[in-house]
């Protein structure tokens, strides 16, 4: 049986454990990775491959499913089972797999175009159902594989090949969208921050139900530097709000923090002015989603000021697949399955 440490991931309790020691290398395939040199996807791939052994699962019981786009090439590079499907549909395909196979750990890789544009419907319905899927949404605010058109997360006024005078579209905030879609787990992390990425993946894996992890990812060809303010060591600490359960929500540099104002809304105030006691303490497990939603609205989509990073929401809710399997078990226990009597029905006649 398992030689790895059992973290007791409740969402993975039905998945067989590995019977050997695993390392990141075990999750690499012999396929040449074909993202552009410098692409943020490399960092995420490396982060995921080094995190996977922590799960302690039999490799053959892990499945990666993706849609279409640069990020969706991910499964080819993971030495597990994998399917590169069609544009936007990965959550639907993964749902069918996850609900019928509780012995699998099913991961979805998608991008801002794949998940939020063509696949928006499947994403919101997967989230509300709470199928046991871990969805990694690589957000680079641009279409990469089709060579540089604006995406549903691009900022207003974005000049791209398809919007020479600037995009008119108001962007989605994926975290707000997910919370609005009844998600039970929503988090945000950054491709370049390996430690935070790994910690976020760990919490997602622990969650029983759908976990959406938005990963800010850099497309160095078509939208280079989109997240630079949050990465650059001179600015990031003054722009990033760290979300840690049980801790006051402040910028990393501690100068400013989140308070609830007289109207009941959230705002960012000087800690020195309001005092640390007035700063909101993060409660990721709060059943009411309104504070998590309010947190998701603090960031400025143009300047990225006050961008929360971490787990916004992580609440227990029975996963769809566990209820699906429970209904099946109840039905099987409650009646005999005799094909002959089913076909015969109750109203028959004999011809001799």
């Amino acid at each position, binding site marked *: 049986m398992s030689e790895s440490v059992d973290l007791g991931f409740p969402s993975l309790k039905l998945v067989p454990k590995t019977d050997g020691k695993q390392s990141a290398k075990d999750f690499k395939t012999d396929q040449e990775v074909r993202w552009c040199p410098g692409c943020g996807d490399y960092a995420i791939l490396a982060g995921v491959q080094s995190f996977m052994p922590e799960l302690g699962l039999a490799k053959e019981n892990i499945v990666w499913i993706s849609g279409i786009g640069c990020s969706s090439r991910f499964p080819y590079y993971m030495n597990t089972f994998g*399917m590169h499907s069609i544009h936007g549909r990965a959550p639907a395909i993964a749902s*069918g797999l996850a609900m019928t*196979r509780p012995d699998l750990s099913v991961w979805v890789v998608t991008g801002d175009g794949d998940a939020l544009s063509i696949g928006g419907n499947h994403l919101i319905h997967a989230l509300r159902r709470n199928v046991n899927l871990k969805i990694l949404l690589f957000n680079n605010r641009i279409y990469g594989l089709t060579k540089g058109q604006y995406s549903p997360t691009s900022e207003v006024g974005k000049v791209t090949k398809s919007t020479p005078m600037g995009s008119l579209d108001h962007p989605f905030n994926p975290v707000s969208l997910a919370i609005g879609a009844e998600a039970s787990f929503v988090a945000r992390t950054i491709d370049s921050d390996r430690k935070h990425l790994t910690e976020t993946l760990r919490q997602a894996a622990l969650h029983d139900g759908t976990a959406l992890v938005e990963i800010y990812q850099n497309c160095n060809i078509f939208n280079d530097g989109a997240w630079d303010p949050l990465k650059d060591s001179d600015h990031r600490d003054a722009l990033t709000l760290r979300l840690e359960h049980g801790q006051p929500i402040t910028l990393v540099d501690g100068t400013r923090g989140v308070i609830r104002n007289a109207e009941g809304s959230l705002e960012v105030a000087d800690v020195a002015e309001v005092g640390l006691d007035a700063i909101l303490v993060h409660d990721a497990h709060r059943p009411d989603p309104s504070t998590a939603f309010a947190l998701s609205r603090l960031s400025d989509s143009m300047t990225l000021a006050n961008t929360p990073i971490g787990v916004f929401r992580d609440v227990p809710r029975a996963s769809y697949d566990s209820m699906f399997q429970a209904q*099946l078990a109840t039905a099987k226990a409650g009646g005999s*399955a005799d*094909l002959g009597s089913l*076909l*015969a029905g109750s*109203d028959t006649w004999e*011809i001799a």
Partner: protein
Amino acid sequence: MGKQVVQLNRVIIRFAGDSGDGMQLAGDQFTSRTASFGNDLATLPDFPAEIRAPAGTIPGVSAFQLHFADHDITTAGDTPNVLVAMNPAALKANLKDIPRGADIIVNTDEFTSRNLTKVGYEANPLEDGSLESYAVHPIPLTSMTVEALKGINISKKEAERAKNMFALGLLSWLYHRPTEGTLTFLKQKFAKKPDILAANITAFEAGWSYGETTEDFSVQYEIQPAPMATGRYRNMSGNLALAYGLIAASQRADIPLFLGSYPITPASDILHELSKHKRFGVMTFQAEDEIAGIGAALGASYGGMLGITTTSGPGVALKSETIGLAVSLELPLVIVDVQRGGPSTGLPTKTEQADLLQAMFGRNGEAPVPIVAPRSPGDCFNAAMEAVRIAITYRTPVFLLSDGYVANGSEPWRIPDVDSLPDLRVPFATEHNHTNADGSTEFWPYLRDPETLARPWAVPGTKGLEHRIGGIEKADGIGNISYDADNHDRMVRLRQAKVDGITVPDLEVEDPTGDARVLLLGWGSTFGPINAACQISRRAGASVAQAHLRHLNPFPANTAEVLRRYDKVVIPEMNLGQLALLIRGKYLVDAIAYNQVRGLPFRAEELAGVIKDVVASV
């Protein structure tokens, strides 16, 4: 005192009324009793897409036609002997189909000046002599029902609603139908509403007694049971048979069934039915849209389940991209298309066969998909098992092309012996299948079985078989991404060869005299009308042969040989010539297409006329 009893060979009854009048229910009950009495029968429910169109209007008319006989019949009949018209709209909408001399039972209570005006009658047709050539039975059905239910504690409105049971009781008396089954049915349906139950039973019995006492009906009819193969029978509708066929296939393949579906007329009943059978391990999932329905089914197939999706034409259009993915992934999947009138929303509750070319070609790239079509309601069972056999044996999506006529129609069905059903078990991949030059072994997901050309079905959870698949072209055998020109050409041809090589039974020809020079070729639900037309023609002295295709891709191996045996090939279809196009293109046969797209099945007499003309021309 019994009345005179007249023996008949066959009768066609049409119940017609407002959508809310319960005509489908009355028709269903009459059908069940007729089936259990042992008559052969065929039915045609014909109802509007609107749930409740404005009361008393022509668009709101819902009808149910039943043909039953003491001999083998294959259609719901062309011209009714009896019309039950619950209101002026039902009379007006149906009169054109009723031959002179037929019986017309009308509910006179509904023939008010307001209702007459609503459908454009200037004078009351019951009084102006326009129905003189019919045997009209004017009966105040509503008020007689209300009168009969006086002692029961229900509202007037509820009492009026039981008038369909009064009509059913009357018809049951008229045609000597057994009553027990209907009473049992009502007791089950209204078990929790004793007053409504009492009302329905009382109305039914009142209708029966009315027949017996009124002088309006001087005779009672009897139709002897039809000779049928020995065995145990039940009445079976197409959608039910299809659902049962899928469950049976899942049991015989020992693979759990997973249905991913989105509600759509006329396919939803399959979703409803399968949802009831979780104890057979049947899993059903109502998805957010058609695309997610098939996506989830494909995901389940990837995980080793029997993935099924059910829909109608517009749903197929949405699923096309995923069907293409399934072709590329080479995973089993059954797409059930219960065809309806198109294009677009078209005629949701009416039948048509116009999705054949969509099933055949409606995808990007070269994406061949096998096609199976049932010929009658009961045959949906066998066709479903056959579609599953092909899907899991050859690891391919398969189209099962039913249509509104077979889906909602019903016929007596001989209950099969479970042990006689085919064994559909197939192996899953469990080990490496390729040895490298250095003696090490690997799993190659696209290494094919030399006979079937199927690739291995290697499901997640199988140790040592980890591999990646996707919609991008794969290298032959090893399955890695490949953009190589020659490899793509080879893979396209391999996928085609796999479908072309599917073993299907030979096409059978019915040619009783053996000297026919004209062949009637059909597919799907037109079997009944074509068969009836051939019988009419033969009785009139013509020689004509009939062949009916169950497999439309690939065609049976002997199709070319069969077609060449005849001077003329006539292909009747409820589309503008889709099979004819395929037959002409593939076999260079100058087939004569005979087409109707009226949302209704062919009339046998009409087809017999076509046969007469063609036979005369050879």
